[in-house]
């Protein structure tokens, strides 16, 4: 799984330079308290998504990293970067970072991340392009057709109550 993702990531990083439109990036930049760069972390430093979104293997929610987790590395790495300084400020004040929601799941839907991750579905299957961008964007809309295509192909449950209760 990892290898496949790395390959995808390589291709993506090339494409990213060509494709990323300025407008989309600009609105996303202003929308988050810290301009977190997914591309740098995932592609340049080859970090696993699950390092930060660590509950994806264990629970329904993938989770957003705590300030403490950011500070594990950024106590020493890139401490002079203006965005990192913002994190340090949150840490100093012991305040959480008020991220804005990007990925939205439709109503009345249950999506257990760990079921997908443990079944070997790559994160980029549902979150395509996340490795190309700096600030997170939702490129794939989570329609039922999108979910069912995969569920049917893999022969797993398509019962309503698997996802809607």
């Amino acid at each position, binding site marked *: 799984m990892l290898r496949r993702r790395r390959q995808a990531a390589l291709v993506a990083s090339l494409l990213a330079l060509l494709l990323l439109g300025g407008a989309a990036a600009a609105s996303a930049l202003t929308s988050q308290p810290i301009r977190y760069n997914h591309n740098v972390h995932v592609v340049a430093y080859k970090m696993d998504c699950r390092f930060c979104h660590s509950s994806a293997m264990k629970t329904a929610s993938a989770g957003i990293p705590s300030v403490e987790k950011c500070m594990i590395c950024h106590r020493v790495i890139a401490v002079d970067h203006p965005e990192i300084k913002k994190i340090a400020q949150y840490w100093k004040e012991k305040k959480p970072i008020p991220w804005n929601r990007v990925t939205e799941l439709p109503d*009345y839907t249950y999506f257990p991340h*760990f079921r997908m991750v443990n079944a070997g579905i790559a994160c980029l299957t549902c979150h395509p392009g996340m490795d190309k961008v700096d600030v997170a964007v939702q490129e794939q809309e989570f329609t039922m057709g999108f979910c069912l295509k995969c569920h049917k192909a893999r022969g797993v449950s398509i*019962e*309503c*109550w698997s996802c809607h*209760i």
Partner: protein
Amino acid sequence: MKHKWAMVIDMDRCTGCGACVVACVAENNTPTAGEEEAGKGRLMQWLRVSRFWKKEGEDTRAIFVPTPCMHCEKAPCEIVCPVYATYHDEDDQVNAMVYNRCIGTRYCANNCPYSVRVFNWWNHQWEKPLDEQLNPDLSVRSRGVMEKCTYCIQRIRRGKETALKEGRKIRDGEVVPACAQTCPPGAILFGDLLDPDSAVSRMVKDPRLFKLMEHLGTEPKTAYLKKQKGPGR
């Protein structure tokens, strides 16, 4: 992994205390209807303890029958739904209710001989901070949607997930709906009929077994064990 969930209610143990009703309300985000709505027959509880008067010679006896959804094999509610919002779940062999699809025709409730379905006539409100109690495992239903007992599907799912994580089958007694969990005299038993060693599989062979309105041919999966009579008068 297929299952066939079933419930057996021992009326010889049931005391009628209603602990199951409140446990169900707490587990399943059931709104409070209020006196006025209750007066119109719009109580939102998924499980009621029906009380029947039964004449026995000179005496009149009160009989308590906890009545959740029967999860019929031949469910009258399913065949009348124009949008397949209520249908038979293949994985768990239960009668499923899909809120997303429901358009509120109420045909299903009309066709249910057990009157166990309830309808959201309003967008029910939880006065703050009572909403902090809401169970995050299942949705809060909005106006115009039918709802009913799910055998605590969120608990079934959690049981499956735990078993999956540990790489094993679900153990008998691992999945317990809120009503069965709390029942003080232990009258409610829940389990998988496809597991031949489960307690319910044994209980359904009990000669005391009967089903509500069996003559209708609905083949309920919620079954009852008849109250026994002691010797003497």
